């Protein structure tokens, strides 16, 4: 069956590339434009008169165009004489057109005043579509984030996503440099497979969710390889109703990143520099504000330099950039440096053919200290002192700092390299037929070396671990769209396409222990060595067809289906089919709708997408092991020939509108996801030999909720504009069927996953605790997220933005504080209790301490050595000021430049946590690989993400 998919795919491609049935554009007809003139001008916002950067200005029916610079100016050369129509468009603004007559050798000035548009129904979107589509045509929600216009000076795209859209949750788990974030769109859709959304960069699929993490190092995110200064916008689709055409990897949603394009005209250079300071704000109690970590935290400096040039000619445009980042970590001995290069070249060899070649290289080197429950972790040894691994001094003892500093001899160097290449050919032989073929290559390479030197405190013999890992994806996708006007008011667009993705991963880890002595060594110098190598190859192919019916440009019905095959499916499984149906209705285009009511689109969509199992889940495998110098086979994976992908069906109902003269924009979506055939780990009888568990398609989960995004323009005048944004997201997950699988945290009728443990029933009584064992506290994922944002446009081009976020309704296993209560100097949130009964002076129920009558049952249960880990289940609600930024043009002109801006951005300056959160920081919940696993669960012992202030200068010349 898998070959059937390919045969069809091949047939489709050969048809789209063959001459039959299509009309090729004549070659060689491009105008020579002997007689030309120039169009130039400025694009400004209609109300505030502020210049608009990044607007596309182009001559209709030609390839001529330009992007506005940061001062809003543009210039288009070689415009043929005669009457031309020039259009301008920019995300968030309504399109504008002007007509002018061009005379030979003359320059015509056309200034555009663009009106803000809360709902741009005619804006072109790509993600989730077979080709391009107007926003009015799509029946599902799609969030666009305009990165190029952001005031904030974010160091990563993940920071810009954080709080940037409803339904998007971005969690940074600690303060270490190089750490990536977990991204969840509408919560978890799988309990065993990855929940990180699929990422495309200019149409090229990213090879992996994350870099490898190992040896107590941090997991870096491939998203962070992309320089935010190179990005124009991001499109986010959050569930299966929108991501059907992406198939078996897309149930968790899709993020597509669009990088900057070049424009016509002379080269335009932009130089940006960011200078930042980061520090860790107090996250503990009054007694232990930084949990005794002050000697190992610092105010860290970082800097980034970015230089880009863009320009082009009639059939050739380019955007080339380079970036250099150097940043110290807020924890001692941690640093990172990064450089990246990007080249985006667009060529139009004929009127009907456009070829884009986008390439990127990045190099990211960083050094981190281990964190979490690790022998060599500074934080672990500090906060657990005196019960630690390095001498047992208390924090107040004079030798404490020296003992902890012994850990710093360890080194952990990681180098990540990324190559990304995309070649896209768009061929539009007729007005009716448009085809696109994209070849993509994405490679993530990681080299890592962790050295415990000879005489190291936790391992006196010393050790060396090296890791070489790479992950690469080669993808080809092709799509053809054929548009037919059936009647004057009925139009149909038929699309067909296919995608082939081959992903390969290779990992080799070498470990050696027993160094010959002090000094620098290699793995070869160690006394005992071992090596492990793993590799995998996954091939996935899909074909899709889609048809969109357009009635009167206001009723739209889209139907489609994708059929997938994959090497990870079981031999007996066959193919998976993902259908979709969506409709869009522009009710405000009806005759009965008065113009002053605004614009309103009604949407409904239902679709399916999947989540495929891992490479070896379907097959019965054995592990080759060296036993007494002989190869030995031991059971590895039971195998399941019927294994297929999880299948998530999603219903979306919503509307999007703008009202009161574009002053109020509202985007509302209700969603209901059902994941059937959910992959669960089913325990195997040990008597059958393999034991352990096998992934089986037996479960069913549900996620429901709504997303509300509003933007209100409170003030709109030439001198002042004030916008207020509110995002509200809810998410309720429930496990409907466990297929007979018994699990402590995955239970039918409960959230996925549930936080479960021992509840203290008489929390506030001054008595021994009464305990309800194995109680369900609530979900690990937040049930509601509220984001607030505001932007102020002030006189003289000054802009101020701010963004905050609240998450609540979720609970956490507080592993780290339980350790402190049981084995350490006492839990952080219990300091108030220790003032009544010191830690170590309460032995549990029945104790007769004289102050016991002042000690609440909750504190008795949690704060002392008798505490049980299952009692540490805490509400995780918190709010954070994610960013506040201000940008202003330089009041003086720098010679040789056309404009210059300064920006001041701050992140993580304030937080609020629930009163009952007796713990560290609610966002330091971690897993070794937060990108891949089920999020939520445990607060682990990490230093939280730091606060950062960044000052930035951008000049264009």
């Amino acid at each position: 069956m898998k070959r059937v998919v390919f045969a069809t795919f091949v047939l489709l491609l050969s048809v789209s590339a063959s001459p039959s049935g299509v009309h090729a554009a004549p070659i060689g007809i491009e105008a020579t434009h002997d007689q030309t003139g120039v169009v130039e001008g400025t694009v400004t916002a209609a109300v505030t008169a502020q210049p608009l950067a990044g607007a596309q200005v182009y001559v209709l029916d030609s390839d001529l165009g330009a992007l506005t610079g940061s001062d809003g100016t543009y210039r288009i050369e070689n415009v043929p004489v005669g009457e031309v129509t020039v259009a301008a468009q920019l995300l968030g603004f309504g399109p504008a057109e002007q007509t002018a007559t061009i005379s030979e050798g003359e320059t015509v000035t056309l200034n555009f005043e663009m009106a803000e548009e809360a709902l741009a129904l005619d804006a072109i979107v790509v993600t989730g579509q077979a080709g391009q589509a107007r926003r009015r045509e799509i029946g599902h929600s799609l969030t666009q984030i305009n990165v190029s216009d952001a005031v904030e000076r974010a160091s990563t795209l993940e920071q810009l996503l954080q709080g940037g859209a409803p339904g998007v949750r971005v969690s940074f788990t600690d303060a270490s440099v190089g750490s990536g974030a977990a991204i969840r769109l509408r919560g978890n859709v799988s309990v065993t497979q990855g929940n990180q959304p699929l990422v495309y960069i200019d149409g090229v699929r990213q090879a992996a969710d994350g870099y490898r993490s190992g040896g107590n190092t941090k997991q870096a995110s491939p998203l962070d390889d992309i320089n935010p200064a190179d990005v124009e916008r991001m499109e986010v689709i959050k569930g299966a109703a929108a991501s059907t055409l992406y198939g078996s990897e897309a149930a968790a949603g899709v993020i597509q990143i669009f990088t900057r394009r070049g424009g016509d005209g002379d080269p335009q250079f932009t130089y940006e520099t960011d200078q930042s300071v980061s520090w860790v704000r107090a996250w503990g109690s009054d007694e232990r504000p930084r949990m005794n970590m002050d000697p190992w935290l610092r105010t860290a400096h970082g800097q980034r330099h970015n230089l880009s040039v863009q320009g082009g000619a009639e059939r050739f445009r380019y955007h080339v950039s380079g970036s250099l980042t150097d940043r110290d970590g807020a924890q001692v001995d941690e640093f990172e440096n990064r450089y990246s290069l990007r080249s985006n070249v667009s060529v139009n060899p004929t009127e009907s053919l456009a070829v884009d070649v986008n390439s990127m290289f990045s190099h990211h080197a960083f050094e981190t200290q281990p964190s979490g429950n690790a022998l060599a972790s500074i934080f672990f040894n500090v906060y657990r002192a005196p019960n630690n691994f390095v001498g047992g001094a208390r924090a107040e003892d004079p030798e404490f700092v020296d003992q902890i500093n012994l850990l710093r001899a360890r080194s952990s160097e990681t180098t990540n390299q990324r190559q990304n290449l995309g070649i896209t050919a768009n061929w539009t032989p007729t007005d009716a037929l448009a085809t696109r073929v994209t070849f993509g290559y994405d490679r993530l390479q990681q080299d890592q070396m962790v050295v415990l030197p000879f005489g190291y405190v936790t391992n006196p013999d010393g050790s060396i671990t090296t890791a070489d890992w790479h992950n690469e994806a080669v993808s080809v996708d092709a799509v053809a769209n054929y548009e037919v006007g059936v009647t004057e008011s009925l139009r149909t667009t038929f699309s067909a396409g296919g995608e082939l993705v081959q992903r390969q991963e290779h990992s080799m880890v070498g470990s050696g222990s027993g160094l010959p002595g002090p000094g620098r060594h290699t793995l070869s110098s160690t006394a005992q060595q071992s090596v492990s190598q793993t590799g995998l190859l996954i091939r996935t192919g899909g074909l899709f067809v889609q048809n969109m019916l357009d009635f009167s440009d206001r009723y739209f019905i889209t139907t489609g289906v994708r059929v997938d095959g994959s090497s990870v499916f079981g031999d007996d499984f066959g193919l998976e089919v993902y259908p979709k149906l969506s409709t869009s209705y522009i009710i405000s285009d009806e005759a009965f709708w008065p113009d002053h009511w605004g614009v309103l689109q009604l949407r409904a969509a239902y679709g399916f997408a999947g989540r495929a199992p891992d490479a070896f889940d379907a097959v019965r495998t054995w592990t080759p092991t060296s036993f007494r110098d002989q190869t030995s086979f031991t059971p590895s994976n039971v195998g399941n020939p019927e294994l297929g992908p999880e299948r998530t069906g999603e219903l979306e109902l919503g509307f999007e509108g703008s009202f009161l003269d574009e002053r109020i924009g509202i985007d509302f979506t209700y969603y209901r996801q059902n994941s059937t055939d959910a992959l669960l780990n089913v325990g195997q009888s040990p008597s059958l030999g393999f034991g352990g568990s096998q992934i089986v398609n037996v479960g069913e989960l549900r996620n429901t909720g709504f997303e509300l995004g509003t933007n209100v323009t409170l003030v709109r005048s030439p001198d002042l504009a004030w916008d207020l944004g509110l995002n509200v997201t809810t998410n309720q997950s429930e496990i409907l069927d466990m297929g007979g699988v018994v699990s402590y945290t995955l239970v039918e009728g409960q959230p996925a996953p549930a936080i479960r443990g021992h509840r203290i029933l008489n929390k506030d009584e001054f008595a021994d605790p009464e305990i309800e064992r194995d109680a369900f506290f609530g979900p690990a994922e937040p049930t509601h997220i509220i984001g607030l944002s505001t932007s102020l446009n002030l006189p003289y081009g000054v802009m101020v933005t701010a963004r905050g976020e609240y998450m609540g309704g979720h609970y956490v296993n507080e592993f780290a504080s339980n350790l402190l209560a049981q084995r350490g100097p006492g839990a952080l949130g219990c300091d108030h209790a220790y003032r009544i009964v010191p830690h170590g002076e309460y032995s549990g129920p029945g104790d007769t301490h004289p102050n016991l009558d002042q000690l609440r049952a909750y504190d008795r249960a949690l704060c002392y050595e008798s505490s049980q880990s299952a009692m540490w289940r805490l509400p995780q609600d918190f709010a954070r000021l994610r960013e506040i930024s201000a940008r202003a043009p330089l009041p003086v002109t720098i010679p040789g430049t056309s404009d210059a801006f300064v920006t001041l951005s701050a992140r993580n300056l304030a937080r609020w946590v629930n009163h009952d959160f007796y713990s560290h920081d609610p966002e330091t919940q971690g897993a070794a690989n937060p990108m891949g696993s089920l999020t939520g669960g445990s607060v682990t012992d990490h230093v939280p993400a730091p606060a950062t202030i960044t000052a930035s200068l951008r000049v264009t010349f």
Partner: protein
Amino acid sequence: MRRSRRLLGILTLALLAGCDLTADNPGPIQDDFLDDPGAHSAIVSGIELNLVQGVNMVGFFGSEAAKEYTQGGRIHPIKLPPNPGQLDRDEDLPNNAWNTAHQARWVAEDGVRRLRQTRDDFATSPLAARALLYAGYANRLLGENMCEAVIDESDAQSRVVHLERAEGYFSEAREVAMAADEPVLATAAQAGRASVRLFTGDLVGADQDAAGVPRDFQFQLEFGANPESHRNFIQFISNNNPYRAHSVYETYYEGYYQETGDPRVRWDQDPDVPTAEFEWVPWYFQLKYTEVTSPMNLSSGREAVLIQAEIALEAGSWQEAVDLVNSLREGLVSDHDGEPLPLWEADNAEEAWTALKRERGIELWLETRRLGDLWRWVEDSTPGEMEDVSDRIRLCIPIADSELQANPNLSLDHPDPVNPLYTGS
């Protein structure tokens, strides 16, 4: 142009037609590959390795229950049983021992099945003889230590099922080994069969088998140095670094060695490190195994003598039994003074049984055999003294939760047998 587009279409067709969606992955070995005769040596090596891991876990939990040692500390990643030595079904206890021992049995039998199906020379193959032999030992491990038998997700059955399977594998191993001209394997199979026949009550057969085993014969389980799971676990956890989790403290062998210096139960202490990880347990570390690769007897001529002695006791020839037992002590000298070990003295059958039980404990110390012996003697109400096991809830490893939850023929309310001598509450 038309021609070039046609060429492009053909090229695309050719490029993609060569692809398919199957992937030949490196790394884990796919099951079919094991049918290749070139893989058979690794299959048999894997059988040995799985037996090592089964013996290690059963030895860790079972030997403590049988009072061959006292736990002195926690062992990562195995959780500490809440009631050490009690073989509760709670916690990880039976899961670790049950899972590894059953995997050892299944891997061995699957290996035999595969070799039988894919080797024309099975009946004369040394590899086949080895696989059969280890299948016998894996079943013996289960039959002697598990409360009940579960075969390939079956309902619970008498543990005798394992012993009968062991006997069958030993018998076939002996035949194949003889045909393959592998006398050591043939003798090991015979010795192994003698041990299970003693358990199943086939005393005539056991006596015949035991009689054919030379007294100096040993067949041992070999261990690897790395990783940890390949090591002799009892030795590994005895060491100061990292666990110091094993102590001879408060066992019969603590006092017996102090009294006799019998080198078979040698232990020592370190004045610089007086206690195990648990400070209430003095650290008396065993020295039967001195390296992590020290081998462990699976069968021996000396065990065969003890089998013969027990058969003699069963037959009422207690003096013959005592003589056989004492014959094992002759030639051994004390670690303390270099003098010959004292012989057991018995004036009646009960004292002879005591001598046998003590000698069998000494001879097979820390070889995962004692728990089965204790249970067998309790069930058979044999006379004579042995360790006081009235404080042990059970003398066998119950069916693990992992089996009860996953096996459709069983459930978590499956009753566990209780030691009839248990006097606790």
